[in-house]
């Protein structure tokens, strides 16, 4: 567990505003993952269940089933005099993000087939994520906090590289090469954090894909205030994606710990 008593508040855990850091570090060969990419769990986390949160549960059945089922909404029961929610008469709402989609497929010189897979809503192995953060040169953060942050994020989108030899029969080697997440109150505001792509895979539009899909999912749920805090070297990256710095003078301020 964390030795919280000895850590002064000012060394709070950065990485919140490290977006898509460009790194010159050499790539490591695929580190031994502690566990394989797990199958997704459709139920809300236990912590959330005790707090009356309606965490988004990505539909686990097939993509087409999830289109048909749509996204359930509970009627507010404490409301006085408020009209009941009405379903829109348009088609059923599509799922927020595709569960798993192959973005790219390449044949490597040695005959290995590599797929770049975009996915959402699945568990992220915090050890894999830490390895990835190390590659881009981000400071480490306590794993328990990272795990909690991922579990309670509204959206978590990941990129994996899946390498298969054409002659071998196994599932191949899967490696986390990118991630982005968003927190939200599910209605008005969302903040995008921790956008990162393995330096070996940068420059191919993967970071753009991650962020654009988060924006798409948020806007489809009418969450219109989408914010992020960008390091200086990535401001242009986000500008190209449609973000504006300090629009109409709106800035982010941060709490300063006082002793």
């Amino acid at each position, binding site marked *: 567990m*964390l030795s*919280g008593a000895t850590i002064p*508040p000012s060394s*709070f*855990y*950065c990485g*919140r*505003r490290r977006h898509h850091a460009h790194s010159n570090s050499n790539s490591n060969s695929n580190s031994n993952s502690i566990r394989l990419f797990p199958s997704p769990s459709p139920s809300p986390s236990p*912590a959330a269940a005790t707090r009356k*949160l309606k965490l988004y549960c990505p539909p686990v059945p097939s993509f087409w089933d999830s289109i048909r089922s749509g996204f359930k909404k509970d009627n*507010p029961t404490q*409301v*006085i005099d*408020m009209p009941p*929610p009405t379903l829109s008469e348009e088609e059923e709402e599509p799922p927020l993000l*595709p569960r798993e*989609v192959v*973005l*790219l*497929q*390449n*044949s*490597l010189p040695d005959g290995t087939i590599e797929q770049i897979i975009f996915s959402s809503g699945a568990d992220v192995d915090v050890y894999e994520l830490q390895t990835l953060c190390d590659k881009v040169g981000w400071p480490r953060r306590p794993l*328990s*906090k990272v795990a*909690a*942050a*991922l579990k*309670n994020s509204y959206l978590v989108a990941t990129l994996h590289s899946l390498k298969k030899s054409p002659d071998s029969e196994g599932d191949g080697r899967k490696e986390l090469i990118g991630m982005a997440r968003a*927190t*939200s*109150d*599910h*209605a*008005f*505001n969302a*903040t995008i954090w921790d956008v990162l792509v393995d330096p070996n895979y940068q420059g191919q539009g993967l970071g753009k*894909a991650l962020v*654009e899909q988060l*924006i*798409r999912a948020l*806007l489809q749920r009418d969450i*219109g205030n989408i*914010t992020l*805090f960008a*390091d200086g070297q990535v*401001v242009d990256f986000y500008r190209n*994606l*449609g*973000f*504006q*710095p*300090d629009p109409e003078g709106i*800035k*982010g*301020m*941060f*709490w*300063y710990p*006082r002793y």
Partner: protein
Amino acid sequence: MAIPLFTSTNPSHVNLLHLTHLFRSANFSCHRFPNINTHGDVEAVDPHKLRVALDHSSVLVSVFCKPPKSSERSASLRTLGDLFREALPVTQSNGRLVGFGRAVSDNGLTASIHDVVVLPSLQRQGIGSMIVKRIVRMLIGRGIYDVSALCSCEERLFFEACGFGNDMLGSTTMIYTRGASQSNLSDKGNQNGVVKGAGRMLLLVPPPVVVVEGERP
């Protein structure tokens, strides 16, 4: 302060109807870029969306004060019931909602503060500051030290007084503002140009992810 106040962080003390009335009294919108009519009034908040937002906020702070005594009644007409009621402390059930604030968090690393509102007639008396400090205290108690707040120019002084400042890491705050007009000419792939409204903003929805196959050059 002279006014008896009751501050609660209990989510069940939040009454949706009273909260929408407070927002209207303060001419406050949950949208960052709200529609404003010719009288300068912001659009009313959608109560369904507000309910959802409250349900997914990690911290909710409500401030109540006693409703003002009726000054028209002379002392001789006050009943025993009136005297009894005046002696009771303020609670969420007998008080009036005069201040509110909430925070959204991932309950691990980060949090952001939203919708800090105080009744205009009671502003500039430290109630808003008390709300923000209470929110921060709740978050710190859970080990979250990375607390942000989006501020307009007017709100910046208020948050500075609450102990907030510019980002120590020097990051740039950015908000998604792309509308349909900016990109539909250049992006042939997104001819539909689906937009979503957020207050007075019309935001362009990026196209769905496309499966592409190809050889690495």
